[in-house]
């Protein structure tokens, strides 16, 4: 079976720094693949290369066996890929509902672009569903700027789901969340993996071990190791990278 997402020899450098260096891996359909690595390992840069935010200097990105290298973010989104951001990246001066509506309105046929934003239709239903599922009912008409950090992080995830993607890329979704919120989010991600392929960046090792089907370890731009969570944990090279020098 072709993997949902595959990269081959993906590389980019900033000045002299090889931020991502010949990284090849694949993510199996409807499984959770987690990318881990110390700060500055190149995880976010890898996400940028895959999601079209950066153009790779070399290497390829395949979605469902189709070469999508060099596609921009909008085209990739159209191919069923959605991503969230490590640093909360929302429309702060719009409400929760308006944010979700913007993300969902690609579900409606193009002709709808010429009629006022409605309360019915697939997009509106999707927004209602997400508001329910993420517990935003009381805050649907609050400005995003007025939400707590945890709520903003949850909205980041909800935004990605609004367009019903096949591949969901989450960059440290639980970053800065309270313990309770983190567990809640973990449950959510697990429940998602029956419908979508998840590519995750996560620092919380406990979460990584319990959530992931497959783990990719990065270090200084390179792929250090990959495998099942338990395998990776016992890999001496990984331990050296993580504990050897902080």
């Amino acid at each position, binding site marked *: 079976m072709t993997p949902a997402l595959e990269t081959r020899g993906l590389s980019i450098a900033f000045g002299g720094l090889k931020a991502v260096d010949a990284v090849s891996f694949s993510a199996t359909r409807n499984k959770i693949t987690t990318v881990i690595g110390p700060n500055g390992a190149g995880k976010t840069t890898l996400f940028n290369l895959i*999601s*079209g*935010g950066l153009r790779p200097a070399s290497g390829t990105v395949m979605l469902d066996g189709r070469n999508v290298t060099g596609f*921009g*973010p*909008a085209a990739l*989104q*159209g191919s069923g890929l*959605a*991503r969230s951001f490590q640093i909360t*990246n*929302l*429309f*702060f*001066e*719009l*409400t929760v*509902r*308006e944010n979700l*509506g*913007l*993300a969902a*309105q*690609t579900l*409606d046929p193009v002709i*709808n*672009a*010429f*009629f*006022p*934003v409605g309360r019915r239709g697939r*997009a509106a239903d999707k927004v209602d569903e997400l508001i329910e599922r993420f517990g935003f009912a009381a805050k*649907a*008409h609050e*400005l995003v700027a007025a939400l707590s950090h945890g709520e903003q992080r949850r909205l980041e995830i909800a*935004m990605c789901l609004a*367009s019903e993607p096949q591949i969901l890329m989450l960059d440290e979704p639980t970053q800065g969340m309270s313990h309770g919120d983190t567990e809640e989010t973990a449950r959510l991600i697990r429940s998602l993996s029956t419908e979508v392929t998840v590519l995750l960046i996560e620092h919380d090792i406990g979460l990584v071990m319990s959530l992931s089907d497959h783990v990719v370890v990065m270090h200084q731009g390179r792929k250090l190791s990959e495998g099942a969570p338990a395998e990776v944990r016992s890999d001496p090279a990984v331990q050296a990278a993580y504990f050897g020098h902080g």
Partner: protein
Amino acid sequence: MLDRLDISLRANHVLFVILFTAAFVFGVMASMTGDRFYLRLATEALILSGLALSIDILLGFTGLLSLGQALFFGVGAYVSALVLREVPSFWLALGAASGASLVAGVVGGLIANRVRGVYFALITFGMAQIVAKIIYNTRSLGASDGLIGIPVVEIPLGFVTLSAGNPLEFFLVVLGGITLIYAGMSYVLSSPFGRVMIALKANEKRVPYLGYSTWAPRMVAYVLAAVIAGTVGGLYPMLRGFVSPELMFFSASGDALIMVIIGGSGTLVGAIWGAILLVAFKSVVGSWTEHHLIIVGLMFMAAVLFMKRGLIGLVKPMIERRLVRIEAAREMRKEGKAP
């Protein structure tokens, strides 16, 4: 419940209806007292409000600062004047003005939309300067004197024919035109496409990850704004009987920007109120002192510093709160009826 953006649009409508009513009453009263001067001044204010509104589409909704919007106003005015000198037909002149500003808008948009932010502002400024200088130096376009001798036109509206020479009739025609422009733009902004425009202003970097091109909506907004500016520009020679290169100078673009900022950007209706206020202020204060600029400048700075939504921002939140209450009450009633 309605989205905030919809509430905001409805609050604009309330403010527009107030303006429309006031303008209508003013027009009728002025013409009953036999006034010509103030009716013509008010007509000019309304024409300029279209230019201001086109700036607000870019600045207040799409997040693009145009410092050369008068370029399109001038293109419309010159094309309309040239047509009127040959064929005194209202619709032909207006159509030609719109068409020419459409073409100019596409060309200008292709140039300006290569860059963002302050570079966009400066490139729009530069384009307007170039075209203004070219016209200023072109004999066949009247050079620095402009074009004069534009005939008074008849305005056939199907059921009735009005005249641009009659102050009240032309005032009402322009008022109708601004109403159409306002309504059309409100409609665009209430659509999913309008939402993407607004998203561009709120956080442009996030937009492509939602699956939208950023270039196309920016381009469409730019061309729309150009056509609006050009169309109202086409009305200008019908009012004044002449056009001159000053129409395209930076001071014209700057004045329109002042109208938007003082009136309140991001509201459409603020631009119209701002235009009327500025024109009225200049003629009233200008009659007893030359130094109105200092007051305009201070109001402008105050708007930038303290009132992000301009003068409209002082009353609009009240209207919005009321609309929210009305909407909530209606929803309650509906739920009560169908439990």
